[in-house]
């Protein structure tokens, strides 16, 4: 009888160790899903969804506290992909946003630095008290720099 008990205990021990190692090595399924959802988002970090960036929104979408149609830069395509990933029904976009880049009217710029601090992807360059400008290729069109500008010299230019 002891042999049987020890055998079963041994098997249970080995299986338990293997499972705990696997648990440590493999990412948790929830976290994995958040990563996958984050990969589908456009990474503009514009916070128009009401969350402070793309990853927090991805987490909120996965745990069900946010709707899947709150990402204007991603458009309908992102809603559709999120719906497919999470097994939900696609919804019409809450608000749409055409792709655009920010343009600083350089003669009007007073070099206040506010827009530089607002830009989530460091696409604005310029020193304090000097003219600022937007690196067009890095601008994600999030519009976060528009509100802080005290002289309203930033406009959005649609990209074709």
């Amino acid at each position, binding site marked *: 009888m002891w042999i049987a008990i020890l055998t079963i205990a041994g098997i249970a021990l080995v299986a338990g160790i293997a499972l705990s190692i696997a648990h440590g090595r493999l990412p948790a399924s929830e976290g994995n899903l958040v990563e996958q959802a984050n*990969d589908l988002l456009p*990474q*503009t*970090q514009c916070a128009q969804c009401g969350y402070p960036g793309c990853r927090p929104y991805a987490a909120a979408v996965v745990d069900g506290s946010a709707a899947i149609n709150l990402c204007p830069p991603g458009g309908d395509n992102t809603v559709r992909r999120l719906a497919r990933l999470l097994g939900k029904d696609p919804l019409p976009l809450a608000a749409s946003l055409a792709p655009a880049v920010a343009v600083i009217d350089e003669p009007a710029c007073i070099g206040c630095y506010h827009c530089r601090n607002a830009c*989530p*992807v460091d*696409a604005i360059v310029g020193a304090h008290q000097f003219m600022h400008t937007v690196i067009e290729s*890095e601008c994600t069109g999030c519009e976060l720099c528009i509100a802080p500008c005290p002289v309203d010299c930033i406009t959005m230019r649609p990209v074709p």
Partner: protein
Amino acid sequence: MSAPTYDLGKLHGGLRLEGHKQASTAQPILDIPLPSQLILPIEQHVGAPAQPVVSVGDRVLKGQLLAEPDGELGAPVHASSSGTVVAIESWPVSRRNGDKAPCIVIECDGKDEAPVATAGTDYLSQAPADLLLRILDGGIVGLGGAVFPTAQKLMQARTAELEFLILNGVECEPYISCDDALMRECAPAVLSGARILMHALQVNACYVVVESDKPEAIGRLGEALAELGDDRIVLKQVPTIYPSGGEDQLVQLVTNREVPSGGLPTDVGCVVQNVGTAAAVHDWIVNNQPLISRVTTVTGDGVVSPINVRARIGTPVEEVIRHAGGYTESVKHLVIGGPMTGRSVTTDAVPLVKASNCVLALAEPATAGDELPCIRCGDCAVVCPVQLLPQQLFWYACADDEQKLREFGLLDCIECGCCDLVCPSHIPLTADFRIAKDRIRELADEKARAERARQRFEARNRRFERERLARDAELSRQKDSAKRAGPAAIAEILKRKQQSRDDPA
């Protein structure tokens, strides 16, 4: 005369199409006289447009450099004849289906004056790397229609381990016979080009491959080869099946090696060049003449007398058509390139460019019939030369399922159009696949942009975190040093401050 050999690999699928080639090959190549005006697009290759180095009003000589290559996959553009640059402006081009693109317009003076002729280089005494640079200056691009700059293709090939140079004289697309005509009349030039390319690539085996429906070209090549007595060059004949002239298909047919998915023929030790390209290399290296003319087929039931012509690059297509007897009354449709892969244009003002292997005027555009639902008969999979499953791809293209499209190898589709032709439901599969490919590329771009934005965002957050930590550390350092100094020192400092305030002098 050395006889062609037949030991061939097998090509999957493909179609036997009606050639329509006899009409244009009945007569020898017609040299078209100089037109009054030459229109030279600055974008006649796959890379970025070349940059003009002449200005309006300049007098240029035949073969003079007009535009320099810009970027990695550029090729120069040369003046096809002597004259005056009268404009650098937008002009309809075949590459954009008759829409406008920047061109250099030359008013010819009719003298066809070239600079003082210098002797051609003895290429055998040149290092291969120098020879490649020389080829780059000739403005030579792949004349089979893909217009990939030849020098860059050879340079890329030199980085791989090579066994064979394959000269592509297959010309499998219906109607086109310009390579056939060139091989008939200029076989020695083609073979000389092959030897130059072999030296540049340092390979010791060359196959000249011709489709079996061109017995006369094979005969001429055989004679020229016997005269040349170079046993490194072997003539091969392949069966007449469309699209055996596709690069990867040709490699498979001739060497029985399959080019891997997403790879190049160099991955299996082969480089493929069109026979016209080889002749152009010969003209440049031996005769010092850059790529300023080419042989083009003018054919179709929309022209009076189909013929192969040798015309200067930049000759307006209407001029070319005029020399083929003009249009018939029933003409409806003009295509630059072949019926399967060519581009329809809306005007015959477009110039003949390096890519133009055929000018096809058709009386009646091929009527495909109305599109019906897919019945999943599988005929398309039988004819697909890349062994894809077009019916599945069509399914996933409709569903916009990027991952499945990739899994089923959409990016390996060569857009030959075989599946279109056999589809009993008249589904425009190739057009659908082109759109799906564009969408996949767009999606990949979008992904790359998002990834970059994410990295920049994370880097910024890390920087903020670093700055915050540095600030905290500095603050606590100041606090600590104050604490360490003790209350006596603080009182001392405060006293000193009080004194300086009381006694500002």
